[in-house]
């Protein structure tokens, strides 16, 4: 079983990303659980979402406390190191939306042998959408770091989700995901 925790802020599409990952895994016949964390719903407030993926039926409904992977969608949350790294398994994976990883985060991630992957999803989003829709590209970065699902399955989930909003939205999302997939880098300690 793989457990993923997503970090971002209200309005950035944290929940959408987690759901798209779950839908993509479902398309591959896997079992999934996707749960948004609900507090007061405010734009800009830190938000988390959780995804469980397994080859077997997922029975448990408790929260995810020791994720295998943490994805940070919001570039300004990086310095909240203890919040982001909380419970991340030793040797786990950290996927960041960042031009480069924050020094403090690198130091602390090293202590638990976490792999860091980073991509400037903000610039990708601005280039493709002209707006900071950097949640979907982070799916491309995640899939490069760990192939939880095939990129093709993510595209299928994106089509289902955005088809009603027009061909261009779908194509742009797929383009952004592909670009993040190819641009994401593993940080060398």
């Amino acid at each position: 079983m793989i457990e993923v925790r997503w970090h971002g802020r209200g309005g950035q599409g944290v929940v959408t990303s987690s759901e798209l990952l779950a839908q993509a895994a479902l398309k591959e016949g896997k079992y999934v659980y996707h749960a948004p964390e609900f507090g007061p719903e405010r734009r800009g407030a830190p938000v988390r979402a959780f995804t469980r993926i397994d080859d077997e039926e997922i029975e448990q409904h408790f929260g995810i406390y020791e994720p295998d992977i943490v994805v940070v969608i919001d570039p300004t949350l990086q310095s909240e190191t203890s919040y982001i790294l909380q419970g991340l398994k030793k040797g786990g994976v950290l996927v960041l939306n960042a031009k480069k990883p924050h020094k403090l985060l690198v130091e602390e991630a090293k202590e638990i042998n976490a792999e860091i992957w980073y991509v400037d999803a903000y610039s990708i989003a601005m280039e493709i959408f002209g707006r900071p829709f950097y949640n979907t590209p982070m799916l491309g970065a995640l899939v490069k770091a760990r192939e939880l699902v095939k990129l093709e399955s993510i595209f299928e989930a994106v089509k289902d989700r955005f088809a009603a909003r027009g061909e261009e939205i779908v194509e742009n999302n797929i383009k952004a995901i592909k670009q993040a997939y190819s641009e994401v880098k593993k940080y060398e300690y």
Partner: protein
Amino acid sequence: MSTIVKGRRIGLNGDRAVAYAVKQADVDVISAYPITPQTIIVEALAEYVNNGELNAAFIPVESEHTALSAAVGASLAGARVFTATASQGLALMYEILWIAAGLRTTIVMALGNRAFSPNINIHCSHDDAYAARDTGWIQFFAENVQEAYDLTLQAFRISEDKRVLFPSIVNLDGFILTHSLEGLYVLDDKDVKDFLPPKDPVNPIDPESPKTYGPLDLYDWYIEHKRQQAEHFNNTLPIIEEVFNEYYELAGRKYTPVKTYGMEDAEVAIVVLGSSAGSVRYVAKRLRRRGRKVGVVSLTLFRPLPVEEIIEVLSSVKVVAVMDRSYSFGSPGAPLFLDINAALSNAKERPLLFNVIYGLGGRDLTPDHILAIYDRAEDIARSGEVKERQIWVGVRG
């Protein structure tokens, strides 16, 4: 639950899975209060009606009291009726809950279980389900999104069966199921139509032949009518099981009033409702791998309480931990604990029982909490003594 299935597998959260079932059930009337603590269920249904995917009258009302009152009228007029609510909304419906049941309506209600105020919480407790326990509604508890969908379809069929004619509540844990997405198999519309033919109402409202529902009924007859209602209600269990079996034939998923894991040789049993059942089973499986004889009993059917099945599975174990996601002030136990005790009261063999209060207001039930419950039960099994009848888990000191 069997995995031989018919239909297609999609990903939906609990709210949308229930709404999808209601759409396939082709309801005639949806009557609901659309604002907090309402869930997305009725919002999804409003979309279906608006898109023309569901030909139903959607009545947005100004309160849950009116939501259920309108549902009662529509159901008595012969319509297939759905409503949904949660926590305070259910509380505001309370007066009409009794009327809906006593007048033998066939309303199906989804209850996204949430905590009662104060303080304002909106997360999961079973306060609302328990508040409805004595009112004469059939009550189901879904453990996951698949069950929320399946039970909603089955609830219509059960409520409308002429040997039943009682309204049903399908409970699904607030947020844990209502807002979380899982994969589920959904049936083809045609299969649902075969399983759930149009409602054939009994004594519906008819302007050509006026009649009175729920008239003045004093000490000369009231108690006979209540006795009659009680007998009918308590006799619904075999019909519920019959419908469960028919659904199994159709969908390949087998429902039973009581769901058990590991009870063949269990010495310790944990009894639980709703989405926590899977979590408890998950931990019980770990314990079993280490040789602990633990079993899990979850009730899919809460009302009528499947008493005989409870006696059968629980009477021979040493210790039973009954988990309640609610609290009953001043009572020796919360509602499920009282129920299980009462069910076992005249059994030849009787386990030692204790009550666990957990998860109020959405407090997560973690594996550690479940292990703590098991440890307590194991201590009691060893010592033969229950020192505390009721414990709380997951509470900060």
